[in-house]
């Protein structure tokens, strides 16, 4: 951390995609971004449909067992999300900056846990992870294409707590990367929801560290109960900081019962992300 990126007054970086668009008169740029966001949603929905109906079934035709096929689907999703982020940046809708992402690109297992300020957090995270197993929350449950895509990708359905923990532990034992959002849904306007303790249970059971990612978006866009056309006065600057990993068993706490260890670990995790947000959000 502590990397200072020079920004111009409007929060854009010279040479960044969309920088020239920011030179438009303010109202015109805003209207442009409302239209651009609508186009982005259409591209996302259309893309999800095409991938779910064509590309993902093709991924499942090739050799390998179910896990290998799902990994191919996950790789396609990774490329699609990478494209989508670049698309939104090019339209001048968002800026994205990652800090310390190298940490997540070494071979797994990785247990990535992030706060959830916006609709596109998972898109950002997966745009950096060629293989990632996600847990599908309520927000996806009533979206038919995404649900279909998620099932091709072998994502974990958010059912009973204990089953989800088991499924995540299995994936981690197979050296895979699992992405969790312990808030369970998008954050409130200020701060974060209380964290569910499932991620901590997964870390304890699998014996892998939690790798927190602090996601900040300023000014706020695509937040909970914020309509997509409510674009902020300037493009949303996303900063995604990969923070120091948290070992599930602190020194001298190895005999603590799981339920207590999970409580403490969850407090530590939330505090680490809150503090990380303070650092990335202030710049």
């Amino acid at each position, binding site marked *: 951390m502590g990397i200072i990126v020079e920004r111009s007054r409007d929060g854009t970086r010279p040479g960044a995609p969309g920088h020239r668009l920011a030179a438009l008169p303010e109202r015109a740029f805003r209207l442009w971004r409302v239209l651009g966001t609508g186009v982005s949603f259409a591209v996302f929905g259309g893309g999800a449909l095409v991938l779910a109906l064509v590309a993902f079934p093709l991924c499942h035709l090739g050799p390998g067992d179910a896990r290998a096929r799902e990994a191919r689907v996950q790789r396609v999703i990774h490329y699609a999300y990478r494209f989508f982020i670049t698309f939104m940046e090019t339209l001048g809708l968002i800026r994205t900056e990652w800090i310390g992402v190298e940490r997540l690109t070494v071979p797994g297992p990785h247990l990535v846990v992030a706060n959830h300020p916006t609709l596109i957090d998972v898109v950002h995270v997966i745009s950096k992870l060629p293989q990632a197993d996600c847990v599908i929350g309520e927000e996806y449950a009533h979206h038919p294409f995404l649900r279909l895509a998620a099932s091709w990708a072998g994502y974990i359905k958010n059912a009973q707590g204990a089953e989800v923990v088991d499924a995540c532990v299995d994936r981690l034992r197979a050296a895979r990367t699992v992405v969790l959002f312990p808030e369970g849904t998008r954050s409130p306007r200020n701060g974060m929801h209380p964290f569910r*303790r499932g991620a901590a249970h997964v870390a304890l059971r699998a014996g892998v560290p939690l790798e927190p990612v602090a996601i900040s978006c300023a000014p706020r866009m695509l937040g909970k109960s914020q309509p997509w056309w409510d674009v902020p006065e300037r493009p949303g600057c996303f900063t995604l900081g990969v923070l120091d990993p948290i070992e599930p068993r602190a020194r001298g706490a190895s005999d603590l019962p799981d*339920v207590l260890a999970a409580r403490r670990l969850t407090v530590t995790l939330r505090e680490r992300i809150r503090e990380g947000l303070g650092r990335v959000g202030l710049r």
Partner: protein
Amino acid sequence: MSGSVDPEAGMRRSVGMTREEILARVLEALRNDFELAAEAVVPTARLVEDLDLDSIDAVALVTRLEQEMGLVLKEERLLGLRTPQDVADAVFELQGQQRA
């Protein structure tokens, strides 16, 4: 799904405990196992909303009570339990059935 046959659990089995004694055990388990503030753990506190128990905690609590009291609570009975009092009532009823 009948009473436990584990001999150690049987030593401390709840047969003959009053409703109040069982409630005291439930409250004690909540305070000790989950490090909850003693004043928050009252018979009418809601397990999920007030005491912040999740499904994994609930399983741990029930497992502990079962071991302590030598009983097995049926899963369908667990779904309706909202407060420590509900849990104590369920254990008390079960004890009555298993003694009969």
